């Protein structure tokens, strides 16, 4: 119990409730570091962490990089345009080369679901999933849960509604796994064309009616809608989406609980999935999510590094 033994963090599906609780608890103790005037602890001094982002990202990459730096690790950031992938090298070759340079952890974001699952087994360094395709984005869900727990004092028994493009959302999947494990009631809400097949088997309530998703919700998590989905024919127009699924203050106050929390993993389309009066309103904890992201990622880096060092010693 309360022991972390995994060298990688690939997703929340495979974690137990205890493991998730342990990360959240550990994050709690790291949160204070970022409030100091000298925002650094020596925990990962001498460790090298590579940030490998095959998809554009500002928030997640910055957050991971700051988390690593505040733990005193050395970081190296690689983006696709500067990597050998452009020269036709396979992902596996690239990773074998990075491994040969004796790094301790690799934080990876990639547009293909499952890439790190096949890589992690054969790799010495810790692999941390910073988002793989439409599969998982575990640290985002962890920071969402950390924020909920911080604000509500618990997760068990809360009604959490996730609104938006569920089909293409790794944030939704990781949140569903994590929240279900910690005992929340999860409702997902989207037009039918953005609900993946047989999602009900993940143990969620499903609605296509925003008012139903808002009713009785303690937390609503609003997902970004991408313009390319409209172009792919999944819904008629951004305008219609905004009318049907855009969360406004008016709708919130009409249907949701008085103390509802509004979250968004960013970046936001103001006026589409979230109205400005909600994004910047009193229910919003969106910027606190960002702050908590660093603490959660510090916790993850610390735990996997410890486990990996222990493994190597044995």
């Amino acid at each position, binding site marked *: 119990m309360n022991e972390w033994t995994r060298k990688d963090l690939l997703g929340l599906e495979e974690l137990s409730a205890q493991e998730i609780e342990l990360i959240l608890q550990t994050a709690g103790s790291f949160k204070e570091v970022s409030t100091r005037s000298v925002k650094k602890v020596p925990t990962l001094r001498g460790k090298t962490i590579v940030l490998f982002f095959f998809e554009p990202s500002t928030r997640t990459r910055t957050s991971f990089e700051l988390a690593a730096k505040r733990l005193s690790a050395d970081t190296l950031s690689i983006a696709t345009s500067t990597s050998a992938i452009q020269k036709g090298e*396979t992902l596996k070759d690239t990773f074998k080369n990075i491994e040969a340079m004796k790094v301790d952890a690799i934080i990876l974001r990639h547009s*293909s*679901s*499952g*890439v790190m699952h096949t890589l992690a087994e054969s790799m010495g360094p810790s692999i941390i999933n910073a988002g*793989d*395709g*439409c599969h998982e984005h575990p640290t985002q869900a962890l920071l969402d849960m950390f924020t909920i727990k911080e604000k509500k004092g618990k997760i068990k028994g809360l009604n959490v509604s996730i609104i938006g493009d569920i089909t293409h959302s790794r944030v939704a999947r990781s949140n569903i796994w994590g929240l279900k494990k910690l005992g929340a009631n999860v409702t997902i809400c989207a037009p039918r064309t953005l609900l993946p*097949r*047989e999602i009900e088997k993940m143990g969620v309530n499903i609605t296509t009616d925003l008012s139903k998703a808002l009713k009785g919700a303690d937390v609503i998590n609003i997902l970004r809608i991408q313009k390319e989905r409209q172009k792919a024919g999944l819904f008629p127009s951004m305008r219609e989406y905004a009318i049907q699924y855009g969360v406004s203050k008016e709708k919130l106050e009409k249907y949701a609980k008085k103390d509802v929390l509004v979250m968004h993993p960013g970046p936001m389309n103001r006026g589409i999935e979230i109205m400005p009066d909600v994004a910047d309103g009193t229910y919003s904890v969106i910027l606190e999510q960002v702050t908590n992201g660093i603490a959660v990622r510090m916790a993850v880096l610390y735990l996997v590094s410890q486990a990996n060092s222990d493994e190597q010693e044995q």
Partner: protein
Amino acid sequence: MKLLIKNARVIDAKSNLDDQLDVLIENNKIAKIAKNIKDKDAEIIDAQDKVLMPGFVDMHVHLREPGYEYKETIKTGSMAAAAGGFTTVCCMPNTNPVIDNQGVVEFVISEARKTALINVLPIGAITKGLKGEELSEIADMQNAGIIAISDDGNGVMNADLMRRALEYASMLNILVIAHSENNDLSFGGVMNEGYISTKLGLKGIPTLAEVTMIARDIEIARYTDTCLHIAHISAKESVVLVKRAKKDGLKITCEATPHHFSLTDEAVLGYDTNTKVNPPLRAKADVQAIKQGLKDGTIDCIATDHAPHAESEKDVEYDHAPFGIIGLETALSLAISELVEPGILTLNQLCEKMAYNPAKILGLDKGYIAEGSNADLVIFDPEKESIISLANFKSKSKNTPFIGRKVKGAVALTISNGKIIYQAD
């Protein structure tokens, strides 16, 4: 040269034979089938406790030559076939260049004559370059020696072109093999659409992509009164459609692959790219329907869709890996383990699915055992247990999700045209 096979359990679907017999092979023909044959000059093969069947006929393989010899060649593919008990295979035209004209057909036939251990019969493309735009020179290819036509790998999306292909082919009495896939519905998909694809965040290929195309093609065949063979059916609803078409008296036949009756889409959990195949591994209910379809005769035959790919091509992201599973060397043991052992098929029915029916569909005088017929035979041990292992493969490629699987049934010996072409260690 004479071969005398002693004490084999001889099974033949055509004559409904299942008896302990000796078989004498002289030159390239079966000279005699009887009890206690004695012949001093013949080389004796002891087949006690083993089954003798007509050599298997696989109407759906990819031998990759010309163009992709790093994946497989006609020679290595024929070695894999021999090791799997096959004595006739039909190779699909998605080579480079495509088998869509007389010249390429002649190349494949001449290469097969030079290097293949077994009968290799090329399938020509329905449309030039497999592009689905214009018909290939079908009559010309037929004169050069093709056995059927197919755009395997691509659905013929233009319904009018499919109609014309069926009409033109019926005039020539050549079989059309449909790869039934609506590309609009399958676009971008990499695995079966369902709970597993939802969980894994991989884009799904709905059964709908196959089912709607089969429904269309059946109706075109009905309207034009033509024959149609449907390749690799994988969905429950496809079995229903074919069953009804047969009941209506249409000349529709179809095949299923060993991977579609042996694995569900749960095999994709873990993202092993060797599970990536088109049509994709389906849900449990689909697998059960395929088995039921084989049992009740809706599905006429087992074809492997042997689709070799180099290890480096499969060792990439799931999204980017090519579709395909090799199947020649695992087909018999999977069929015995998944179909014969659980009582879905008798050995006699297995013989029908793997030898007699495919030959009949193709109009070949093969796939049966009789005195005077060509000596294409397989001897196998139906009880021998083994674990599928990479080390034993003759195929140039290794892309199979079955490594490590415990199976029953193993080929002992394969005879093609009266010659022993494969013998297990």
